[in-house]
């Protein structure tokens, strides 16, 4: 079979019918994703003191919308994304500039763009667009090219432009995620490890300089992270209460809807960034580990799909989006457990919030697309490929 499949791949007009696509779709992967979303909705129901309103019902509607978007994205030909990769990235950058000029201020930061019919958060768009653009850039690069510093200048710029625009908003969490995701892709395509070490060294030395560029509230968050007791009723309150909520769960937790910390509002914003602690409080160590297991499976599937993909574009897309997803998990969990400063990164698929869910599902759609088109070979250069 695989022999024929391989033959097939080299066909110039590698086009799968819809039936093929439905057949090649990875349902186990989607099931894992949906299971996590369901856990999230259950937690939002509990966080709303046993009410669908105001969070669980809306989250469910967004889930349905996101799910349909996932299918649409996954059925689009992988070549489409390859072809329009830079265009998508360019639109993303324009939206970011737009938000800087005409953006809608909310929660102390300028992140939203009102397009009349819809509110768009361009930084979310950029999380996908940057991965697509970098995947496109490194798709045809040979190992030698990647080793040259000159070759690395454009992708680094591709990363830095949106990062600076997003830092301006200001949104440290998203900017950090873009940097980490890009660095992850650089790592996977084979940039020498000493370069990462060198950049990290320079970065560490320049921390005092960067510090001066941080906004006051960001400085405060970092300081509070380092010592929550500094301000136990102000900024440190979050971290302290977060740890109490999580820690008080014990092994088995207090039971569904029995979490006192969340029910009695000791934990602000429990429905968004701190939702993991609600799980920890109500389902204890068992529940926390179960969710982590699901996340590990989703991430492992991402790696599996990247390895399975025949095209470098597909590999990079899948691994880049998986890194992105993993970063959400690590940063959010590290944050609520007091290992990282509170930077405003939601727990993927679980935290209340529409934009993040949509972005994630578009990402999963793309990963599914990579899986569906796993046998597609995309040529090194466009000319070769399209001939």
């Amino acid at each position, binding site marked *: 079979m695989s022999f024929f499949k391989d033959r097939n791949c080299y066909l110039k007009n590698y086009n799968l019918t819809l039936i093929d696509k439905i057949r090649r779709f990875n349902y186990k992967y989607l099931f894992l994703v949906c299971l996590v979303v369901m856990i999230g909705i259950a937690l939002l129901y509990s966080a709303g003191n046993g009410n669908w309103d105001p969070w669980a019902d809306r989250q469910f509607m967004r889930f349905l919308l996101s799910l349909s978007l996932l299918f649409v994205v996954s059925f689009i030909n992988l070549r489409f994304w390859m072809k329009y990769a830079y265009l998508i990235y360019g639109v993303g950058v324009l939206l970011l500039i737009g938000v800087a000029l005409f953006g809608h201020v909310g929660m102390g930061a300028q992140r939203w763009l009102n397009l009349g019919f819809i509110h768009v958060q361009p930084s979310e768009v950029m999380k996908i667009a940057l991965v697509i653009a970098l995947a496109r850039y490194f798709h045809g*690069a*040979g*190992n030698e090219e990647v080793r040259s510093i000159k070759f690395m200048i454009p992708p680094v710029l591709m990363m830095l432009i949106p990062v600076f625009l997003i830092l301006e908003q200001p949104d440290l969490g998203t900017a950090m995620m873009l940097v980490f995701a890009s660095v*992850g892709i650089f*790592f*996977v*395509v*084979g940039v020498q490890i000493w370069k990462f070490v060198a950049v990290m060294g320079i970065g560490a030395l320049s921390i005092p300089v960067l510090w001066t560029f941080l906004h006051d509230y960001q400085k405060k968050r970092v300081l509070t992270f380092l010592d929550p007791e500094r301000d136990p009723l102000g900024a440190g309150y979050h971290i302290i*209460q977060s*740890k*109490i*909520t*999580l*820690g*008080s*769960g*014990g*092994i088995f937790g207090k039971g569904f809807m029995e979490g*006192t*910390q969340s029910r*009695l*509002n*000791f934990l602000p914003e429990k429905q968004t960034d701190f939702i993991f602690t609600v799980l*920890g*409080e109500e389902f*204890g*160590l068992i529940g*926390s*580990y179960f969710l*982590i297991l699901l996340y*590990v499976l989703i*991430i*492992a599937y991402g*790696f599996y799909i*990247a*390895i399975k993909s025949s095209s*470098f574009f597909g*590999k990079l897309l899948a*691994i880049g989006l998986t*890194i992105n997803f*993993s970063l959400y998990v*690590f940063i959010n*969990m*590290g944050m609520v*457990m007091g*290992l990282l400063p509170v930077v405003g990164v939601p727990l993927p698929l679980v935290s209340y919030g529409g934009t993040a869910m949509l972005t994630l599902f578009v990402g999963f759609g793309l990963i599914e697309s990579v899986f569906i088109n796993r046998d597609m070979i995309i040529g*090194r250069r466009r000319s070769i490929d399209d001939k």
Partner: protein
Amino acid sequence: MSVWRFDKTRLMHQRMAMLGVVFGCLILILMGRIFYLQILQGDKYMQLAEKNRISIRLTPPARGNIYDRNGLKLAENIKTFQAVLIKEHAQDINQVLENFQKLIPLDVDEVERIQKEIKFKRAFMPIRIKDNLSFEEMSLIQLNAPDLLGIQIEEGMTRYYRFKEDSTHVVGYVSLLNEQDMEDDPENPLLDLPGYRIGRTGIEQSMDDILKGTPGIRKTEVNVYGRSVRVLEEQKPINGQDITLTIDSRLQSFATDLLKNEGASAILANVQTGEILMLVSSPAFDPNLFTAPISVKDWNQILNNEKKPLQNKAISGTYSPGSIFKPVVALAGLENKKLSENQEIFCGGRLKSGNQFFHCWKRGGHGHLNVTEALMHSCDIFFYEIAPEIGADKIIQMAQKLGFGSLTGIELRGERTGILPSEQWKQNTFKEGWRTGDTINLSIGQGYLTVTPIQILKVIAQIANGGKEISLHLIQDTSKEHPISDLGLDPYHLRLIKRGLSMVVNQKKGTAYNSRFEIDGKTMAGKTASTQVRRISLKEREEGVKSQEELPWKYRDHAMFAGFTPVNNPKYAVAVVVEHGGGGAKKAAPIASKILQEALRLEKSDAHQNRLERR
């Protein structure tokens, strides 16, 4: 597959594997952290979560009432109404406060306190604006309710003393907690109770543990704003126990009136049982002033009164007993066989001991007297003569036996022992030996000796009841025994002394003859005393001693009288001390007489009442 493609795939898969290892490590760190927080530190965080969630409030118990012997309430709890402000119900807090002050003016201090509480208290917690609203104030608030959004009238409890100043020094008062209390016992959970009062003086203070009761506990679940969500556990408060006193409030009021404007005290007790029926110290003050924070004006008025209204003179005033000590000396002489019934001594007006002259209060002297006559005339020379014969130690022994120099054990705080001097005591205090002059001074109750009115009462009562030791008490408690034991004195000697004391009142030449009475054949016996608070110089003595009325108040003698009635079968003993009152016969004896007469009159009318009821 081209070579570059193969190489690149291999490198990428290698790198993905490395990345996978890194991610695996991160996952392990997260899992380890969860393990640390939930398992290793789980108990700590559980406790912190419980502390967040559970609010323990105390519910105040009702304080026990204090009754007099006839069941009248001396201290009780009454409802009060107070205006409170609840922030979350007010739209413009400052405007509301301003409107309130237009209707009911507030002290500057109070406004300051209210402003502070507005800043720190939570939106739904009531802030006390004004206590003890009168009905006028309440209706004013209700009429202007639309301008006072957020102001509510709340019911509270306060202590009320119906008899006002009549019972102040027995019952005492309670007051709100102050900063000192917080320092003394910062752990006391009751400190958080608004409106909780503790006993400060009198029975309220000494019996606080019984009266205060045990607070209830109300465990509620609260949300982050402190608002109670549900009650988890409730333990009802145990109210304080009532206390019934041996006091008769009618006598209290009667004596308070008699002593008005004096710095004085008067105590009346049943000589057979030791029950105190009346204990008055004057001037008194209205204890109700203290239940709410006392105003600065009232406080200064009390503090600046030179007659010291805050002092309970009956138990903590110490005085030289003067002539009231003479029966003790006489008894010591009789008991020690240094004095006999018919032994006569000549009083010539003065006595020389060493190179010092001791004078009798009567310039010309009394001539020949025996012991009863000496008591009747209160002759100083008689006692000057016999005291060295008896010896100071024997006199002191007798004084001690009868109750001087030690606490009576009355259920009030602040009782003082006074000073019962002795050779040893003088050596320790002044590094000087005891001299005959000291014995002579002691013989007429002057010198170092000081006693309290309640000690005087105990001594006179124990002489009256025929030498039975009683323990004076204020609380009627059937479960507590007040043992009565025999002092081991010769009844005949006591009868002799009592005959002398009766002559003081009932013989024409007796010092208290003007205060005599007879009700249904019952008469009074007793002893007067006028104790000097200044030394009379030789020069003045020659020019003629100034009369008491000529002297400024502070230099006048203390006037005292200790007595009992009826003479034949004594029931009531009384001790009266009027500070700087002039003469005991003139000032103290009439008061004592009136009090005893009132006690007899009340006994009679009560008995009559009882007979009517029984019928």
